[in-house]
């Protein structure tokens, strides 16, 4: 039996949860999902592979990672799965880390593939994402209990979050204890609300070392303003203090998935590419045609961004003016 922890937004699985289900479904059967927190008993239209949903902590309004792990551990204790799979999201990884700590079992985070032990064997064969996806690790997991795995984005890219399944709901009766509730979301702070956030933006215009300085971002902002885009940047830019860290796209900044990511004067260090590879299209503008980003982009322009961006801005103005005149 396989357990998979799922996360959802208003009853719809997150993409990573869907990929987790897909990966988990290949590890054995039956496949049961675990959903925790308010609304977790209302999950419907799940992928067909899920035969039951264990729903718990419905009355725990505030997220408490250890309480989630506690509930998950209770399901594990009751069901004795051979594997527990969770999305490699911030919460998924966190809950699984607690579960691993509580059960003193090994945990393999960010798996892209998993194969149960062969008959007579003891170790799972795994493929993990390392260096934020720049490398793959072949790993073995030998565990005295269930295999604890979290799943990296891309493990099952085609997995659909919804399906025709309408599994049976099993209520998990876990009651959090004091230790579980030492770490709990006490409050939410909303953003100041100016501009488009990187996470939601449809278009991002991002600048790197090639921008040259704080003032150099004027032209980046100008293009972003025209396109209703968010402004992003590479790590060197925040290290230099040209932009605040919340604008940083990358392994240690924000990972983004816009329709179009325009990278200006960004060389494309792996730490940056990790953050923007979720973009549907990447346009790179760089003086160096051999910069790593140029081969990883969909479109490239070789040139100085300080010459190219104003030309694009002018061209947009011209196109729009023409259009307005035509109307």
């Amino acid at each position, binding site marked *: 039996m396989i357990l998979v922890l799922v996360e959802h937004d208003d009853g719809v699985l997150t993409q990573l949860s869907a990929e987790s289900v897909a990966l988990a479904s290949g590890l054995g059967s039956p496949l049961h999902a675990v959903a925790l927190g308010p609304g977790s008993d209302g999950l419907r239209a799940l992928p067909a592979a899920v035969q039951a949903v264990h729903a718990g902590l419905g009355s725990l309004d505030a*997220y408490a990672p250890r309480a989630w792990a506690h509930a998950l551990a209770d399901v594990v204790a009751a069901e004795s799965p051979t594997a527990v799979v969770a999305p490699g999201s911030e919460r998924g*990884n*966190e809950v*699984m*880390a*607690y579960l*691993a*700590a509580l059960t003193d*079992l*090994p*945990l*393999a*985070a*960010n798996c892209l593939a998993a194969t149960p032990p062969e008959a007579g064997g003891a170790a799972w064969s795994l493929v993990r994402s*390392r*260096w934020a996806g*720049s*490398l*793959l*690790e*072949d*790993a*073995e*997991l030998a*565990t*005295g209990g269930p295999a604890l795995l979290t799943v990296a984005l891309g493990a099952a890219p085609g997995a659909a979050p919804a399906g025709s399944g309408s599994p049976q709901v099993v209520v998990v009766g876990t009651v959090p204890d004091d*230790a579980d509730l*030492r*770490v*709990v*979301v*006490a409050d*939410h*702070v909303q953003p100041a609300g100016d501009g488009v956030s990187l996470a*939601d933006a449809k278009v991002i215009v991002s600048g790197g070392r090639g921008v040259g300085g704080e003032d150099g971002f004027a032209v980046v902002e100008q293009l972003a303003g*025209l396109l209703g*885009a968010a402004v992003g940047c590479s790590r060197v830019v*925040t290290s230099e203090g040209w932009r605040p*860290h919340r604008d940083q796209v990358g392994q*240690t*900044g924000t990972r983004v998935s816009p329709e179009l990511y325009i990278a200006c004067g960004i060389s494309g260090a*792996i730490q940056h590419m990790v953050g923007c*590879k979720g973009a549907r299209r990447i*346009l*790179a503008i760089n003086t160096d045609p051999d910069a790593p980003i140029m081969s990883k*982009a*969909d479109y*490239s*322009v*070789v*040139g*100085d961004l300080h*010459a*190219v961006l*104003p*030309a694009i801005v*002018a*061209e*947009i103005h011209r*196109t729009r003016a023409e259009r307005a005149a035509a109307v």
Partner: protein
Amino acid sequence: MRVLVCIKRVPAVGGRIVLDGADIDTRFLGFTMSPHEECALEEAVRLVTAHGGESVVVSLGPPESEEQLRYALSLGVERAVLVETDGGELGPRATARELAAVVGAEEESGGTFDLLLFGNEAPDSGDFQVGIRVAEALGRPCVSGVKQLSIEGGTAVAMRDRGRGMEVYRVRLPAVVAVKEGLNLPRYPSLPGRLKAKSKPLARRAVVGGGDGLRKVGLRVPDGDARGTQSLGTGPDAATRVVEVLEELGVLAP
């Protein structure tokens, strides 16, 4: 206030990682630590400057990890502990066991640490669990993914991103906090700092030992993620094609 920071020596990779067999070819690479950990160090130095006390940095790794520990000392951390491995990679479970043991030993002689700071995840292995495992081993609360931190009396107020906003956590000290870059803007070491770092105490400890269950077999480079780049031209002349592409993608309309 007593703060302990855990850091990990990792290669400073460039635009492309080159493998040498099943491992990263580090012949031409320098070594560094995660940006998350640089922020953890900066936070520790700031907290001790503001509240008084002591900061300690710990690393589990090969003897060469002294370089990263000295770097931490040059930023103002008072002393360092290196738990020496033979260079082989320990899994996250074994790592947490070793670090919990160090913390225990350090606390036995020097008293409880109010804060144990970790980077949210290591850049190389990305295990997302060491801080939590250490916290559980010590029976302390742990907040991870933290990008803002303040100490109010005996409470740590920690915030992390959630959607467009932030979640706020309040935990009693002593606590464990796994931080992310953006927490602060780390300083560069000053020359006097570097000089002082040379004579600051650095203790070496042997590993306790024990297995993990998760074992690396090898590394490989994933199949190319090249997208079949299409050149739109050179210099300002490319603007026309760029705008055509914006139109095709449906992002041009005002």
